[in-house]
């Protein structure tokens, strides 16, 4: 999906990068995270001091496991996009910036994989 105007596309001008999609994904995840965060806070409060079997029982319900998975993945994606903006704002050496971009993407992806496996293991 391109958000360029037809004129800009025809002229071949404009940003060579993908700032519009970054902006859009940041907002889309933000909107999704509003209700998900309310649910997440409710879950954490409810299970404060709970035994492990109670937590497992909660995740055994596929709706709860799905919601937690969606919350974690949306949150980590939102996080990766946000940290990228911080890197762009403060790191001006191209090499360092590129290295931090890759590190940021790997960190987000690694956490997503680890959380997904943990949630699936609790759910199944």
């Amino acid at each position, binding site marked *: 999906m391109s958000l360029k105007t037809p004129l800009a596309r025809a002229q071949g001008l404009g940003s060579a990068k993908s700032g519009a999609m970054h902006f859009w994904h940041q*907002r889309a995840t*933000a*909107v999704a*995270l*509003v209700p998900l*965060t309310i649910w997440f*806070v409710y879950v*954490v*409060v*409810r*299970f*404060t*001091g*709970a035994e*492990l079997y109670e*937590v*497992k029982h909660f*995740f055994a319900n596929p709706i709860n496991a799905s919601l*937690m998975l969606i919350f*974690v993945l949306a*949150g*980590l994606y939102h*996080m990766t996009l*946000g*940290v990228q903006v*911080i890197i762009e704002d403060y790191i001006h050496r191209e090499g360092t910036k590129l290295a931090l971009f890759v590190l940021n993407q790997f960190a987000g992806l690694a*956490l997503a994989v*680890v*959380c997904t*496996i*943990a*949630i699936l*293991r*609790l759910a199944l």
Partner: protein
Amino acid sequence: MAEQKAASRPLSPHLQIYRWPITMGTSILHRVTGFGLALGALLLTWWLVAAALGPDAYATFQALAYGWFGRLVLFGFTLALVFHALNGVRHLFWDLGYGFQMHTANRSGIAVYAVTIVLTWIIWAGAYFAMGKL
């Protein structure tokens, strides 16, 4: 050769000189809390992994999370999460073009601070209630 000299002309004031407007405070805090929550993601991952690994790992997590230092860290993350969520909604309204008037932006900023404190207090009261300590 150009030499480094103290300029005799008046210079623009800098960060330390300005009286911080409310919108400047909330803007900087949005970034700080956002980055803080990225570290909080590590804690959430630890909780999920500990639960998935079994009773021993979960007991270790609980022992650290319920200690005074764990509580302090979790309280900080609660404040950060609530602030970032509320101020994020404020940003979404701005993205739609609402709330840009100076007095509106100032009032919504103060509202975010106030609601953050109230909600954090309610969440912690709820957590202590869930533990049966309230």
